[in-house]
């Protein structure tokens, strides 16, 4: 049976109302809404999308199309810390892929986008963060680590695992 989209909890609704208000005040678009949603929840929640879809009379498919188009958006919760290895050109020629291999190894992950079981770390590959002159670089959340080697990468991850330097 066709039913109305599921409803969201009251506190969630309050958050979403806030985002909606910002959107209306600032002639935003659905990308800005989704960026706000991801900021709050860490990923794009289906119920939030349905909520906005109904409020704004924009089909949920449109949201989903945008979410899956842009690399910034995630459909699943990510780890507390995002370890990103830059694979831009400069980093590539200076061995970025080896750094990426090392991060995977240290975090016991198989591929890009995966999150550790304890939800502490997500490993991602990014396409150039514009820090080419200190290539290769690793980002932990928004902090940039430059001139990385396989060794320094191992050390960095070990340090993060021990809890130092990890932040949200």
């Amino acid at each position, binding site marked *: *049976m*066709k*039913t*109305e989209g599921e409803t969201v909890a009251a506190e969630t609704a309050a958050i979403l109302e806030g985002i909606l208000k910002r959107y209306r005040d600032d002639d935003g678009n659905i990308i800005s809404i989704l960026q706000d949603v991801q900021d709050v929840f860490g990923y794009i929640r289906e119920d939030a999308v349905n909520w906005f879809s109904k409020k704004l*009379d924009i089909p949920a498919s449109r949201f989903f199309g945008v979410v899956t188009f842009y690399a910034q958006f995630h459909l699943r919760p990510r780890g507390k810390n995002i370890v990103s290895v830059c694979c831009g050109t400069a980093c590539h020629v200076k061995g970025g892929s080896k750094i990426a291999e090392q991060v995977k190894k240290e975090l016991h992950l198989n591929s890009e986008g995966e999150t550790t079981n304890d939800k502490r770390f997500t490993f991602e590959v990014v396409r150039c963060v514009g820090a080419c002159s200190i290539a290769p670089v690793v980002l932990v959340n928004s902090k940039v680590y430059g001139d990385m080697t396989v060794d320094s990468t191992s050390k960095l991850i070990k340090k993060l695992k021990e809890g130092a330097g990890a932040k949200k």
Partner: protein
Amino acid sequence: MAGLATVFGSGAMTNSITEIEDNDVLFVIGSNTTETHPIIGLKMKKAVRKGARLIVADPRRIDLVRFAHLWLRQRPGTDIALLNAMMHVILAEGLEDKRFIEEWTEGYDEFRKTLNEYTPEFAEKLSGVPKDDIVRAARLYASAEKAGIYYTMGITQHSMGTNNVFAIANLALLTGNLGKENSGVNPLRGQNNVQGATDMGCIPDVYPGYQKVHIPAIKDKFERAWERKLSDRPGLTATEMTEAAIEGRIKAMYIMGENPVMSDPYMNHTIKALKGLDFLVVQDIFMTETAELADVVLPAASFAEKDGTFTNTERKVQRVGKAVNPPGEARDDLRIITELSNRMGYLMHYNTPEDVLHEIGSLWPAMAGMDYRRLEKTGLQWPCPTKDHPGTPYLFKGGFPRGKGAFTPVTAIPSKELPDREYPYVLSTGRVLFHYHTGTMTRRSEALNKVIPEAYVEINPEDAMAIGIKDSERIRVSSRRGSIEIKAMLTDRAGRGMVFIPFHFREAAANVLTNDALDPYCKIPELKVCAVRIERI
């Protein structure tokens, strides 16, 4: 239809479906167009895409509201207040079409006085539509070059249904939105050939082509053509037949392809009437709820199994082509009628359905220009009097059949049964996209029933919360006439204080509940408003 016939002298959609997309303003009132007329709904959406402004007046947040620039949520049964107030505003702001009124209408002076009391404030009290929205709607509609009004049963299925239609006609006359392309008054007919059945004289007071049975000259014409003496006494309408059967005045009925048990209001009443008959013949393609009560059931052919024509809501006569043979011994209705008639001693002989069409054309000039060869290419809209006539896309170009368009003063009167303490909710009934009418055809589709498998009642979430009803819960809905168990659907499509039940489902038939109060003029039942109670089980 009777309402429009009174005002203009002819009762049908004044414009064509294809004209919809070039409207400047569309005023859709009492029509859930996208569900009941999906393809006309597409044209409306196309018009909006092309820049038209859309006003929707409906107690429910129907799908079309998504495309509307203005949505007026009137309480069920308060259309006249709303329409009169719009006209009040139009007059107050001088937006009426004075030249049109002068040239093409009558009864204006008397009529305009009756609008005085219908201020937007007054109408807001009655209808619940904010007065500013009424003003906005009036301006929007009146200032358009090409404005079309579209309505269906939401307007007509009321005890004051005819008056509702008068009010709509008044609005169009007042603003001169008639007699030209892309603007007019358009009742959207709900069934594939309801226009045709009416055209063909399957109504008690007229022969084919709306020719009155009581006018001697007309009767003479038909007596000569049909070679029999005919009665000049108008017959009974369907709803009156039920009464007459209960009272014993009607002894036998012959029902061809209808299912009044499901479609008529107050189901228990209808069943009682049909059971009381001495003799009932039902001719159908399925064993319907009505056929179960028959003395003889005749197996008929479906649309795919016969040749003929349908007339759609825009008066367009179109071909029906035989694709397959009827199952078993089932026969097409034409053959059944001919044979029965012959046995009864009234001889009929037609080689093909087209012979019948030619006979129709000989008796009603509006279809005289039609033959199957012409219709095969594309349908033709009546009037089409000659073989080289292209058909008539819109009516009243340069005049109304009755001469001038008549203003008919109407006052806002309440529905027959209003909510009270015992039955505090208003029930409206109607269709959904995925089913059709009494469900005889659509409920046999596995696919359709996967989407909408069972009946439900739309309840506003706030009302539901007040009663303590959860989504999908089975509840009881009762009226003074009966009671059904049904699944609740919580949705803000329904406004506060109203519920909606589609009438396709025999296991929770909406018409067990509905009121058989009739419009005094055209005997249409008040299916859109009755009082009900909602309870948890």
